[in-house]
Every structure is written in C-alpha cells, then in structure tokens.
C-alpha cells in the first residue's frame, strides 16, 4: 500500500456501505437528501469504476495484464480475503453504476416514496453487486451474493401489493434454496482442496487426488447449479420473468444486471477452475453450460412470444440475453468470441434496463383490459374490419408519446439485434467471431446452431416486440396522455445513449472487452497476481 | 482406576441424559396437547444443557460453559413465548 489509489478497489464496497448506513440515521421524511446522497454515491462509484477500468487497461511496464489485488487486513493471500480488479470486474462495476444511476434518477420521480428505505436498499444492493464482482474468495462471494439477494428481496417487495408479494415469495424461496446449494458446493470444494481463495483453488484443483475428484466435481456442479439459478438458466429460470415483471420499474431496471452476476461468476470460475489447462477436470461442465444457454435462449424466445404483458416480455428478454452470453461464451472458448459476448452483454443489459423503465411509462394510464382484447383478436385471427369511410387523418401524437415511441424503437432494436442501435453490432461481432477468420476451415455444427439461434432470436424478438409496440403505442383505445417527468425520460435516454455510443464507436469498447476476454482466458495472470508474494505483516508467509 | 471410574461414569451419565432427552422428546412428539409438547421442549432444553456440562467434564474443557449458561439464562424465552401464545393467542400484546 503505497498510495491512496491502492484503496480504490475497496471503495466501491465501502462507499455504499457508508452511505447506506448513514442514511439509516436520517429520518425517512428527508427523501430528497437521501436521493442526493444516493446519487452522489453512485456517481462517485462510477468515477471509481472508470478509474479502475483505466488502470486495468493500462499495460504495466512488463507488459503483463495489470490485475490489481487488495489484501484485506494486510494478511497474505491465499489465507484471508482478497479483492481483485481486472478489466472485466471494473467493466461490470461501471455498468452497475450506470444502471443504478439511471434507475435512481427514475425513482426520484416518485417510486422512492412507495416504501421505506429505498435509497439504503439501493446502496446495499450496490455494495453486494460490487463485492460480488470484486471478490477473490469463494465464501466471500457467497456473502456478497447473499447481500445483493437480501437487498434485492427488499427491492422486489418495495411498494408491496399482492403481485409483488406473490412474486417476492417465489423469488425468495427459489433463491434461498439456491443459497443452500451454494453453501454445499463451497464446503465440498473446501473439504477437498482446503482453500477458499479463488486463485489458490485454480492452482490446487488440477492437483486434487483422483479419489477426491468425484467430490470436487460434485461440489463444483452443485455450485454451478446455484449460479445457474441466479443467471436465470432454463429450467431454473421461471421465477425471473414473474419477479422482474412484478418489481417496481426502477428496481427491475437495476435487476437487469443481477442475472449477469451469475453469468460473470460462471465465466470467471469455469475458466479459472476448469480451463483448458486445468488437468483432469479440464472443461468440466462446459457442454452443460452450452446446453443450458441454448435451452434458455429457446425458452426465452417462446416466453417472449407467449407474453401478454409487456413487462413479462422484458423478463423473457433478460433470459434470452443471459442465455446468449452463456452459450456463446462457453461454446467457443476463444477470447474473441468471449469479447463479443461481453459486448453483447453490456448493450443488452443497458437496453433491457431502459426497457423496464420505459414500460412503466407506456403502461401508465392505460386500460389493462385493452391488452387482452388486442391479443385475443390477434390470436384467433379475426379479420379486423376496416372502416372504409373513416377519415384518414393521423392522430396528433403528443411529444411525450413520440419520445417514448422512439425509446421503444431503440430498446426493441437493441433487444432484437436490429439496426440502427448497438444490438446489431453485438450480434455481428459474435457471429464473425464464432465463424472465425479461416475461410477454408469448416463451420462446426455448434457454430451453425448458434448462428441459427441468433437469427431466430432476432426474428422472434422482432415479432414479439412489434406486437407489443403496436399494442401499447398504436392501440386505438382511449388513453390518457402519460404524464412523464423529465426525471423519468432522462435515465431511459441516458441508457439508450450508451447503446448509441456503442454503435457509433464500437471499436474502443470492443477492444477493451477483447483485453478483458484475453485475461479471462489466461488464468495464470490472475493466479500470479493474487498469489504474488508481497510484503505484509506476516513475514514468514504461509504455513503451507 | 479412578480415571476409569470417571470415564465410565461420564459415559453412563451421558447415556442417562440422552434417555432423559428421549423421554422429553416423546412428550413433544406425542403430546397429546400443545402444553405437553411445550413442557417437553422445556425439559429437553434443560437436559441438553446438562449434557453440555457433561461434555465439558468429559473433555476437561470449560469452553462449553457459555453455551450452557445461555441455555440456562435464555432457554426459557422460547418456552415463555409458547406458553403465552397458548394463553393469549399472541406473544406480544
């Protein structure tokens, strides 16, 4: 620890803890103060994340990948807990703070008053998310997972009401069960390897004795199942659309990142523990991840088509996004593909978050019965009588509706992967990476499958989103003009602008992600950085 | 000799306490009424606490004292709550 910048890594965890705790000492009536504190903290977090990104992307003198390690309590690794910041985790931190910022601004328009302690819960959720992205310790990961889940339970229930409570009950029950699996998995791995440090595990796992391998893999598999639940993989994902649809709009928007935590961990751990060079258990579970990803894409698409409520459709879009990232990243095992998948992850997360907030504005002041009617008519293929003598004069669309309409188009385009926004670029990047550079080499059946799936998902999402858009924006039912506040439209626009920026300037983003993917695929850089001998209070080093 | 006696007496005492726990558990399982079950639980707590003390004697370590103390001091809180629930239908009015 030589300078204050060394502490930058831990600030994304301590800052929300501090703000969240301090807000408990402020009376609930001072909502504005809390909102400002919350936003200020998020902005700061964003700045820290950007600094970490920059640090992680600046090559060191030796040219090695710069991976920052923070040894808590000044104890040597692998004995105590470490935090690790590399390109990927810094990226996830930045993404998280962007989403949180948008959602919090949105919430200041009214959602914050719907229940108690909204801002504290957001801060604690961020603490959990940031912790999960940064930690280098398997059990500490569990703790941060529980923290983010606990805060998410609170946020799902924010505002109460039958739908939320019903969905919340389901969400909590499933996640508590998954947490039980998490604990079983972690303790089995500890029982076999004797360590909890992720880097140390990456080193010890190849050396596990043959007779212990069954236990190790059983533990890893159970742990994987727990992550698959959080990532929303079929058939463990049915809670997700229900929960996200029931949650308050800004909450659902922040939740867009939550399934990505599961994906992040799965990617990171599977490459560290069971990468190509990890001995007898190399590539353990990779095929299952691919299969789960593909099944999830398919199920998400089916669900999107079958959704009557637009918010459920958004929930299924989350599944498709998660499934796509996992299937594509797990399938190829090449950094280029992983980079493209990360690019896709970022922009689909942004769009889905914007979409969740947008839905609330669109649905505001609408008669919920209209949906049912429109869908049934469509479902049964009734010819819609065209009134021939109706005067063909368009309806004047209020400016707010026009803006919402364009936001909808933007979200739909990103989610379906169509031009003009970044979803198209993301799909393009994934597909070219999947096909590879070598024209002479054939295309593997798996690549064909994924190519077909990506196309199919574009088509299906196009159909579903068009249907939803027509229903909400063009339906002739009487509706009050939605009264939209600036604080509600700005965050949506902000997130979509992020997508636009990634459309106009995809290269810097993609090359950053390429770097992230490269280090993800090179576990030794990670383990070397974490386990590097450093001066610490224990001069003798470890006992082992 | 004396140490053998002590060893065996601890084992036997633990056996007896375990049987005592089983008796209490029998009441908890069989009832027939709720108050019988609560009484069983209260007894089970005391028996378990005594069992902890014997474990301490057996291992020659007094680190289990705190657990026993907590049962002695707070073990009744649960039973009080149960009793009050039976009497009033709610624990705190």
């Amino acid at each position, binding site marked *: 620890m030589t300078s204050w910048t060394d502490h930058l890594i831990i600030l994304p965890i301590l800052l929300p803890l501090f703000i969240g705790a301090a807000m408990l000492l402020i009376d609930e009536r001072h909502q504005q103060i809390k909102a400002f504190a919350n936003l200020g903290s998020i902005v700061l977090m964003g700045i820290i994340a950007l600094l970490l990104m920059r640090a992680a992307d600046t090559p060191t003198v030796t040219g090695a990948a710069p991976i920052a390690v923070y040894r808590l309590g000044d104890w040597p690794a692998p004995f105590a807990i470490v935090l690790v910041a590399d390109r990927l985790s810094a990226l996830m931190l930045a993404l998280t703070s962007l989403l949180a910022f948008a959602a919090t601004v949105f919430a200041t328009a009214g959602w914050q008053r719907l229940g108690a302690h909204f801002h504290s819960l957001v801060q604690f959720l961020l603490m959990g998310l940031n912790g999960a992205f940064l930690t280098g310790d398997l059990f500490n990961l569990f703790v941060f997972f529980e923290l983010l889940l606990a805060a998410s339970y609170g946020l799902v229930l924010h505002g109460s*009401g039958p739908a939320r409570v019903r969905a919340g009950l389901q969400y909590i029950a*499933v996640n508590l069960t998954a947490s039980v699996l998490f604990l079983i998995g972690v303790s089995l791995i500890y029982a076999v390897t004797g360590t909890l440090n992720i880097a140390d595990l990456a080193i010890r796992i190849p050396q596990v004795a043959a007779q212990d391998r069954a236990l190790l893999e059983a533990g890893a598999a159970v742990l994987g199942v727990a992550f698959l639940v959080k990532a929303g993989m079929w058939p463990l994902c049915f809670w997700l659309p229900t929960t996200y649809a029931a949650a308050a709009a800004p909450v659902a928007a922040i939740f867009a990142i939550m399934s990505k935590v599961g994906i992040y961990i799965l990617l990171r751990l599977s490459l560290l523990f069971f990468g190509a060079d990890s001995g007898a258990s190399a590539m353990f579970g990779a095929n299952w991840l691919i299969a789960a990803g593909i099944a999830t894409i398919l199920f998400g698409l089916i669900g999107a088509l079958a959704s009557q409520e637009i918010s459920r459709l958004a929930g299924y879009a989350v599944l498709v996004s998660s499934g796509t990232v996992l299937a594509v990243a797990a399938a190829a095992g090449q950094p280029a593909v992983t980079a493209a998948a990360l690019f896709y992850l970022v922009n689909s997360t942004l769009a889905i978050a914007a979409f969740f907030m947008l839905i609330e504005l669109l649905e505001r002041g609408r008669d919920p019965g209209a949906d049912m009617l429109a869908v049934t008519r469509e479902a049964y293929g009734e010819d819609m009588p065209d009134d021939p003598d109706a005067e063909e004069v368009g309806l004047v669309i209020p400016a707010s509706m026009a803006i919402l309409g364009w936001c909808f188009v933007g979200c739909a385009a990103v989610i379906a992967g169509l031009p003009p926004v970044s979803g198209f670029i993301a799909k393009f990047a994934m597909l070219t990476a999947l096909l590879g550079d070598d024209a002479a080499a054939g295309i593997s059946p798996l690549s064909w499958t994924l190519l077909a799936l990506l196309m199919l998902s574009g088509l299906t999402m196009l159909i579903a989103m068009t249907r939803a858009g027509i229903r909400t924006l063009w339906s002739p039912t009487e509706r009050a003009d939605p009264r939209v506040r600036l604080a509600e439209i700005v965050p949506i626009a902000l997130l979509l602008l992020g997508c636009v920026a990634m459309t106009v300037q995809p290269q810097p983003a993609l090359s950053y992600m390429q770097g992230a993917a490269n280090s993800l695929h090179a576990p030794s850089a990670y383990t070397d950085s974490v386990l590097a001998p450093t001066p610490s209070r224990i001069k003798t080093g470890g006992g082992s | 000799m004396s140490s053998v006696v002590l060893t065996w007496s601890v084992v036997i005492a633990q056996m007896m306490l375990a049987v005592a726990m089983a008796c209490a558990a029998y009441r908890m399982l069989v009832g027939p009424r709720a108050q019988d079950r609560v009484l069983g639980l209260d007894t089970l707590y005391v028996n378990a606490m005594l069992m902890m003390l014997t474990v301490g004697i057996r291992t020659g370590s007094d680190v289990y004292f705190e657990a026993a103390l907590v049962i002695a001091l707070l073990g009744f809180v649960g039973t009080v709550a149960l009793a009050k629930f039976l009497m009033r239908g709610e624990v705190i009015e």
Partner: protein
Amino acid sequence: MPQNVYLLAVILLPFAGSLIAALLPANARNAEAWLAAAVALGCLGLLVFLYPGAGAAPVRYQLDWLPQAGLSFTLRVDGFAWAFACLITAIGALVVLYARYYMSPSDPVPRFFSFLQGFMGAMLGIVLSGNLIQLVFFWELTSLFSFLLIGYWHHNAAAREGARVALTVTGTGGLCLFAGVILLGHIVGSYDLDAVLAAGAEVRGHALYVPTLILILLGALTKSAQFPFHFWLPRAMTAPTPVSAYLHSATMVKAGVFLLVRLWPVLGGTNEWLWIVGTAGLATFIVGAYLAVFQNDLKGLLAYSTISHLGLITLLIGLDRPLALVAAIFHVFNHATFKASLFMAAGIIDHETGTRDLRRLSGLRKFMPKTAALAIVAAASMAGVPLLNGFLSKEMFFAETIETHDGSLLDDALPYIVTLASMLTVAYSLRFIREVFFGPPPTDLPRTPHEPPRWMRFPVELLVLTCLVVGIVPSLTIGPFLQLAVHSVLGSATPYYSLAIWHGFNWPLLMSVIALVGGVVLYLLLRKPLQHGLRSSLFAGRFKTQRLFDLVLVTVSWRWARSIERVFGTRRLQPQLLLLVSVALVAAALPALLHGLSLAPVALDGIDPALALVWAVGIACALGGTALAKFHRLAALILIGGSGLTTCLTFVWFSAPDLALTQIGVEIVTTVLLLLGLRWLPKQLEAGVVTANMSVLKRVQRLRDLAVATAAGAGVGLLAYAVMTRAAPDSLSRFFLQHAYSDGGGTNVVNVILVDFRGFDTLGEITVLAVVALTVFALLRRFRPAADSIDIPEQQRLQDEHDDAAADRSKGDTIADYLEVPAMIMQLLFPFIFIAAMYLLLRGHDQPGGGFVAGIAMAAALILQYMAGGARWIEARLRIHPLRWIGIGLLLALFTGAAALPLARPFLTSAFAYADIPWIGKVPLASAALFDLGVFSLVVGATALMLLALAHQSIRGHRRPAPGRASTPETN
C-alpha cells in the same frame, strides 16, 4: 470540396432533414414540404457532382467503424449506384411535392415527412454502401421506416396489421440477408464490396456457396415481394398513397432487385442462381398479373401489378445473361416512372372521389380530363404499348425469354408463358383505364370529383412526360445513364444492345402484338363477370398466402408459444423447487457416478451411544415436525426446536463452542419470531381431508416428491460421510491456528477468523442482517392481515368476556394476574442478561462468545420484556431506536476497519496492543473488539427491529377491508 465529402453529405442530408422535420410544429405543412423537397433536390444536386465517368473507379469514402471485425463505414458510388441514387432522390422530390397536397391540413405531417426523409436516407444508404454489413444495416432501416410509414394511420386496424406484416416479412428477410452476408464475408475474408465483387470465382467454388446464396436470396426476394413472400405488399397499401408510390413501387421494393444485380457478378452464373431466381421471378410475374386482374381496389390492382413487374425484373436477373441484366436495369427505371405516376393518379382519384373501388368508379374522364389523359398514358406504358418506355424494356424482355438458357422444358416453354402473362398485364391495365375513366358518369360517390390542384398533378405530368420521352427517344435520354449503370455492373462483359424503337419484324414484336390483342380480348371476356363480383379462385380464401401467413404466425408465435411455455415453464413455485433440487441432485450425482465415489467402510465400534441416542431424538423431532407442519403448526415449530437443539449439542460434542452458542441464540429468537408470525396465519386448517380422498395424481406427486426428498437426503448424507471419512487436505486453518494469537491477538481462533482474518465476511453478513431488517420493517409498514386474522385472538376474547362477566373483575384482570409474578421475574432478569451479554461480547476474542451472540442475547432480553409488559407498556418506559442501533453498528464496524486506511494499511488491518493502565494492569486492546462492538450494536438493532415490527402488528388498528374487495389493488 472533394467528392467523397459530397458522398457523405448525400447520406447525412436526409437524416438531418428527418430530425429537423420531427421538431417542426404539427401544422407546418408547407415548411415540411419545402424542407423535404430541398433535401431531395439537394441530394440530387450533390449527385450531379458525383457523376462518375464511364470506366472510372468508384468514388469511395471510408471511416473506421469496427475495424477489429472488418466493419468500416464505407460509401461507394459507381454508375449503377449513382443511377439508383438519382432515381431515389428524383422520385423522392416529386413524391414530396405530391404529398404536400395529398396530406390533409389536419394531418400531423412532421411525423410523415420525418419518416419519409429517414427512409430516403436509408435507401440511399443501401445503394451507396461499400460495405456489405453496412448495407444490411441500411436495409433493415428501410424496413423500419417502411413499417412506420405504413402504420402512419395507426388508428386504423388494417394499417397496423399491414405495417406489422411488412416488418415481419422484410425484417426476417433482412436477418437472413445478414446471415448470408456474414457467410459471404467469411468466405471472402472481407465485407468490403469491392473485395467481394472481385472474389466471385472463389465464392462460387466454396462449400458454403449454396447456404450463402439461399440466405441472401431470402433477403432480396422478401424485400422485392417475390412469390411466395409477395403478400405483404398489397397489405402495405394501407399506407398513405405517396408512401405507396415512393416506397412500394419506385424504390424500396427495388432494393431486392438492386441487391441481386449488385451481387450478380459474385453469386450469379450458376445453376442454383438460374433456378431459384428465375423460378421465383417467373412465378411472381404470373401470379402478380393474374391476381391484379381480379382486384377491385385501385391500389390493390397497382400493388399486384407491381409484384408482377418485380417478378419480371427478377426473372430477367435470374436468366443469368448480360443482356437480360441490361433489360432488368432498364425496366427498373421504366417501372419506377410509370408506376409512381399511376399510384399518384390513383391517389388523386381517391382523394377527389373518396373511393378506390373500381366497381363504384366510372366515367371520370369528364370530371378530370387532364388526370385521365396522364393515367391513360402511364397505364399504356405499363401494358407495353409502343412509343412508351414500358414497351422498350418489355421488348428486350421478350427477346431474352426466347434465348436458350439451360435447355430444359421450362426454358422452352418460357416464351409462351410470358406472352400469356403479358396478356394479363394488358387486361388489367385496360381494366384500370376503362373502369375509371370511361363509361357512364359515376353515381353515389362520397365526393364530387374534380381536377386536383395544379401542383399536385405536376409530378404526374413530369413522370408521364418521362415515359413518353424515353419511349420515343431512348438513346438520347436514358441511353448514357443506362450504359453507365450497366457497365459498372458488368464491366468488360457489357454486351452490345440497341435502344431503338424499331428493330424490324421479329419474334418479340409478334409476342407484343399477341399480348396486346389477347389482353384486350381477355378484358372484354372478363369485364361483366368482374363487375358482378367474380373473384379469383386461385390463391383465394383459406389458401391465400396472406391468410396462410397469418394462420402460421398466429399458430406458431402465439398458440404454440403459449402451449410450449406452459409445458416447458411454470409459474408455480413447487415445480420450480422440485426442478431445482432435481437438477442439483443430477449435477452432483453425475461426477460421483463418473469417477466413482469411494467410501470408507462403516465402522460401528466408534459410535458413541449417547450421541446416537441424542440424534435419534433429533431425527424423530425432524420427522415429527415434517409430518405435523401442515395441520399442527405449533407442534411442528416445537419439534424443529428439538432438532435445532440436537444440532447445537452436536456442535458442542465436536468442539465448536461458538457454533453452539450462536445456534442456541438464533434458535430461541427464531422460535419467538415464528410464534409472532403464527398469530397471523389461519387458525386451523381442515384437518379432516388428509389422505382419504386424495386423487391418484396427488398421490403420484407425493410419491415423486418423497423420492426426490429421499434422494436428496441420501445424497447429501453420502457426501458428508465421504468427506468426513477421508483425510483432510492441508488447509487454510494451519495458517489461522498459527497466527491467531501471535498476529491476531486472540486465542479463540474462530473469533479471530470472524473479526479479523475474514472480518470482511462478517461485515457483509451483518449488512445482510441490516438489509433484511429494513425489508421486514418496510414490508410490515404496509402489512394488511387477512380478514379472518384481524380479530383479537379467541383466547383473549374469552378471557375478556370472563372478566367482564365477573362482578369484581374488570377487563384485563386475567392477563394482569397471569403475568403478575412472571413479569416481575422477567424484568428482574433483564440486567442479568445484560451482564451476560457484555460478558459474551468482551471475551469473544479469547473464549467462546462475540458480538453476534451477545447481540442476540440482548435482543432476547428485550423481547422478554415485551412479552412481560406488552408493547405499549414497554415503549412508554423504554424507547428503542433499532434503526439507530443498526446504523451505528454498521458505521462502527466500517470505521474500525477503515481506521487502517490513513495508516496506509488495507481495510480491516487490525491492531492490538496491551495497554498498561495504572492500577489495572495490562489490558488487551484489539481493534477487533471495537469491530465486534459494531456487530453487537447491529445485531441488537436488527433483531429487535424485526421482532418488534412484527409484534407491533398486534397493536395496530387493522381495518377490515370493505366487503367484496378481498384484495384491493395496490395504490401506486
């Protein structure tokens, strides 16, 4: 300025115009029109500067976009692109002028003109793209703008449907094109158009040629409304007529044709090309013409006619010969002129009469003679009458059909087939003219027809003039441009062709004559039946492709999707949990089965009978609790308390005093918590219906659940046994045991781990507790009990009644007597528990104890007081501010950890020292103790908050919901 900047400006101008148009006020019709016209003419003007000389290299403009994946923003203009761009902008300008008069003054035109210009930009983007991915990008943009323009009158259901179908079909095609282009790029190694055009032989020889071809053709054919994807186009006629004229006849539908011509040097010249493109074109040509005859809607007729003509062009391209390609390009331009003018004329008729029904229209020649003359000339061009441009390209078409291509039967029959189809063309053109302009004066029209405004007719006049001029002096007018376009596609392969009107008596002329005569005869035969409602039997009713499409779309994307979602998904919790447990079981079992799980033999001699008996008790309690959890909740609660106690005893047995302490504390608090909750659950469930009348399905489900539960239990038990019976690896604990005292300053290693080595876990864990407490608090603030739980409990009612009934007693005496003595003792215990809690807190670092268990003990003490005195009584004497305890606890823990930061040490770096205080002696001072104090404060606060928030529900006045509104919707 250099040319490539002009090129960029051509693309940017329409989009800029679109943006400005959107921001203008709703009634700014003139401003909108001026703006749009200026943009179109401006682009046209720029294009003049970009006129590429024959044989000159294409002008390029390139920007890096995503170089890593071979994507750059490249604009490229060669002769073919230039000609197309001119067509787009020129017709665009005319359409804008027309639309100025067509759109009603009350129509909100900013949206219209904005979309129109956006479309123009996208279309220009397609033709000027020098990168295939970028081409797809603009391709999909045109679909999007087309969707928005078709749905312009979205209050109309047909418009919505038309827009949806168009987007679905062309968007899907666009995705296929995307895939195809990516494959093409994969084969060539670049997406640059020039690179791809240079790699034709390589592409055609590649194993991926056929899939690439099919995917790209799917894109082109859907866009150009080729059979069987043609059905979206007639439905798109719900768009305002300027849109139909511009997008759906002159430009967008030509994008498919454009692409086919563009990629012909790469993909063409194979049998696959000939067969797929040729067959699609031929079928479309015939089907379109046939269906056009039967249309009663003016725009419908024109739409099918457009389909038919696009089929003709596609057929020409499919014929795979340079001359055919020349004819195709020529017809693209001719069709654009006469069809755009016809659409505009139809729009004028619709506008002035209020109907487009051919059966209602009649004799308009008298009312609008100028329009009639224009429409007649345009229709004649469409029919292929000499001296008009349509005749010229049709002659070339006939000439090409006569040539031999692959010598198949179809090839031989081609001239006959196209002649027949051309008869249909003549017939519907004739019908259009005859029904609308001739015959008796119309009756019962919605409006009295008259000539349109001068400038609304102007674009039609200009277009018809073009038809005439090109038809009469082709080589002087269109000649150089056609040559330019053709040359840039075919290069050195450009064939010789002549644009003369008269080629002498030859086979094509004969075919034209036969077609014209036959068409007239056909029309005369069909006139009466059509007037009386004759409908085509082919492709009608249920077998109409559009019907079929709807049916498939609705069935697959809605009905099937819903069924599949129901089969492969669920919204119920139980199946989800079952799946989760089962998946975990399988996941754990597979490695065990694969590697074989070696187990130590079971040794019975090491079993301690006392522990065995204890666990017999624990197991019995667990099973009993399980059995009773449904109907005897209280019993279940008591019984699992037994299991918890045995668990706690096990921790004591196997050397884990801290665990035992914590477990017992949590056990007690949990019991109280669940009891507090039990108050709000329904009193007694129907205990009668247990297993007697259970359905078979229920029984099977129960058996299945039992099997899964047993397997899960067995599995976890086996894993535990396997773990416990093998040697422990060298673990982290070595380090902790070695350094706990020397470097952590505590003898209780577990506690040192908790507050020092892994203090970060603890910090997170207490935050979880805080968060849960907040959630519980927030949720309970809005708690509304079920109707049957609102009343005070039965027991209290009875006791109150008893008190009221007795003369010497007053209400509340029973409870007062009941608690008199116990409450006294419970209050007395409060300070004693406090002392014990302090003891546990302070010695945690060295002996069992710690902040958590101390906090739990303190919270239990508080609860005890609540039970003794009642919430109101306590709170009159003792205000607990749990939120403050929580906040302070978190901050204390945080600051203790952060105290190391100013000393340039990482967070949570602990410090301990032995302070030598006078009189007292050496006192160990560890920062970890302060951390533990934070934990204590938080645990007291959080536990108290949860318990008290729940307890407070009893004293809150819950109002019964109004009858009939069992669950009121929430208020946002």
